[in-house]
């Protein structure tokens, strides 16, 4: 007779999709992604700064670059990365001085990071475009 009390080995399933993270976890992973994006974008920013400060024609050339769709897209992504990193960073600094460390307030502030950074990106983005 088979042993009916022995537990069958159940498969273990971890859902590691970032979409199932709580909002503070999402802010955290996007803080990393945006930071890495800004790090990689340094060269493009320096290139534009170099060109725009070199001469009158260099300034015009930098402005010309930024009119191209691919550069504009890059600028928008950088803008979002900067704003998200900034907002998440300010939230971090506030958490460090014990502001909003409760579970509910931490969730609300994490949600606010997404709302504020995306709204500012849209607002500034529309004006830059």
């Amino acid at each position, binding site marked *: 007779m088979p042993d009916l009390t022995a537990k069958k080995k159940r498969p273990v399933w971890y859902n590691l999709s970032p979409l199932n993270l709580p909002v503070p976890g999402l802010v955290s992973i996007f803080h*990393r992604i945006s*930071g*890495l994006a*800004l*790090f990689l974008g*340094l*060269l493009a920013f*320096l290139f534009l*700064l*170099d060109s*725009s*400060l070199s*001469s*009158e024609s260099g*300034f*015009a050339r930098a402005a010309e670059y930024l009119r191209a769709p691919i550069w504009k897209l890059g600028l928008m992504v950088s803008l979002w990365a900067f704003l998200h990193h*900034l907002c998440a*960073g*300010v939230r971090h*600094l506030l958490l*460090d001085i014990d502001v909003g460390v409760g579970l509910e307030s931490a969730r609300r502030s994490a949600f606010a990071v997404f709302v504020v950074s995306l709204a500012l990106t849209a607002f500034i983005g529309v004006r830059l475009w």
Partner: protein
Amino acid sequence: MVNRVIVGAHYGLKDWLAQRVTALVMIAYTVIFLVALGRGTVSYASWKALFAQEWMRFATLLFVASVLIHAWVGVRNVWMDYIKHTGLRLALQIVTILWLVGCAGWAMQILWRL
């Protein structure tokens, strides 16, 4: 009895603090930059005049130094968390340092040739 407190190398705390201090410097610079830039369109003359000022160069120098330290701590942490292969991690960390120091050097060259 040897009354010894067991402690680490302290670099964790130093990095934690450096990350916060450099963040505050960069926030301050962002505000200063936006105020100095003012409203309206930016011309080559006003753009160049902005960075030709000695105090603005000094502020930008502090900003660049902050980016250098902040990005080093942050990117190094990312490599430490995700790259398990020691040799690859070391290579990426070296590339990160060279990239950041190179960028900082270029920024200084741009500002001080004005």
